């Protein structure tokens, strides 16, 4: 009697097992959608975002531009109107709303260049950095203080006071030279240049005419 019932139940064993597996597979549908959780974890993002490592100083950027460092890719995240008015030399314009466009991705999702975001201060550039960091893009930096700091330190550097350390004067000399590179003209440098130009005597280079060589051989 027992054997008959058991045999009857065992008849449906494969069906039951198949149903069980299908139900478990259905559980995959309940798993959270990947799209929303794309990128590094929130804890990682917070720890990266709080660290000041992403910032590059205006002096560092000026140094790289002056030396025509080919590894740097400057990205202005302001709107095109502000970009056209003034931007850093050779900077690209990717306005913040277009940050995730396919065209922008080619510049951001790579590891050959050091990308530096900048805006007027670093509020908008930080936003761009946070989104890029969540997506796991490498070598992304932010210009500390943005163009406002660029103006204060590079374009119009303030002269250190007399009681300041020697490296402050050295830094000022570099910044002043950099500001001249970026187009700022100092009256004293113009006077110096003109006086220097007068002093230098013209070099006279005499060019000796080559004598025509007589043809050799022949009859």
């Amino acid at each position, binding site marked *: 009697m027992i054997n008959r019932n058991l045999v009857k139940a065992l008849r449906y064993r494969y069906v039951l097992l198949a149903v069980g597996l299908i139900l478990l597979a259905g559980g995959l549908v309940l798993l959270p959608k990947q799209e929303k959780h794309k990128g590094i974890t929130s804890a990682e993002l917070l720890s990266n975002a709080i660290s000041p490592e992403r910032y590059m100083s205006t002096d560092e950027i000026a140094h790289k531009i002056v030396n025509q460092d080919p590894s740097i890719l400057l990205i202005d995240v302001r709107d095109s109107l502000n970009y056209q008015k003034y931007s850093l030399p050779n900077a690209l314009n990717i306005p*913040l709303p277009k940050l995730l466009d396919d065209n922008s991705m080619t510049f951001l999702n790579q590891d050959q260049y050091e990308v530096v975001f900048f805006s007027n201060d670093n509020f908008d550039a930080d936003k761009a950095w*946070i989104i890029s960091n969540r997506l796991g893009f490498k070598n992304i930096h932010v210009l500390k203080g943005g163009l406002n700091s660029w103006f204060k330190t590079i374009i119009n550097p303030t002269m250190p006071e007399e009681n300041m350390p020697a490296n402050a004067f050295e830094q000022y000399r570099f910044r002043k030279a950099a500001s001249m590179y970026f187009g700022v003209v100092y009256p004293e440098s113009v006077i110096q240049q003109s006086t220097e130009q007068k002093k230098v005597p013209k070099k006279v280079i005499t060019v000796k005419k080559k004598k025509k060589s007589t043809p050799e051989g022949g009859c």
Partner: protein
Amino acid sequence: MKELEKTKRISIAAVFSILLVIIALLSYKKPKNLYTITTKTALEMLLDKNIAVNVDILNDTTIVPIDIRSQYDYEKGYIQNAIHMEAAEVLSNENIEILEKIKANNKMAVLYGNNPEGVIAPYAVLIQMGYNNLKILKVENSYHQNQLITKNVDLEKSIIDIPKFIKGSAKNANIKPKSNTHKAPKKVITIKKSKKNKPEGGC
């Protein structure tokens, strides 16, 4: 008899595989602090200019100020009724509980630090986790005679017209301004002219 043994083995294998899946499901731990929005939505939210508010908003007593500065700064002085939540610790269980409570009570919280730039990082992380009841206080905090001084600041405002300044400097020096774009010098490739061989011999 052989067939019966074969079917037994198949059944045992199937039962074991189901058990394995059940154990895996039971031991699965849901990761904490998941994002609830995509990067695209997060960017749209960050583009909203209303994310930063003036200090006047604190006149509304339902607003909860959250101080994200260091413990030391907080103890020196803070905005009235502010909750301390150090920037690096905003995702701790305790702080998440507080944020959940504020959200459940339909209250708005404003994050503030020494300046708005210091607040953008924890703010951006929290909004991506679904805390859309947060704002940034557009203030700069400093101390004067051990008293907290809070003043409004403008964000992303250009302090000066740089091209005008450069042109002005050139005008002062009475010379034409140089453009700020420096083109890379053209590479000149010199090609050596091959010397004509002297005619040798011949009639």
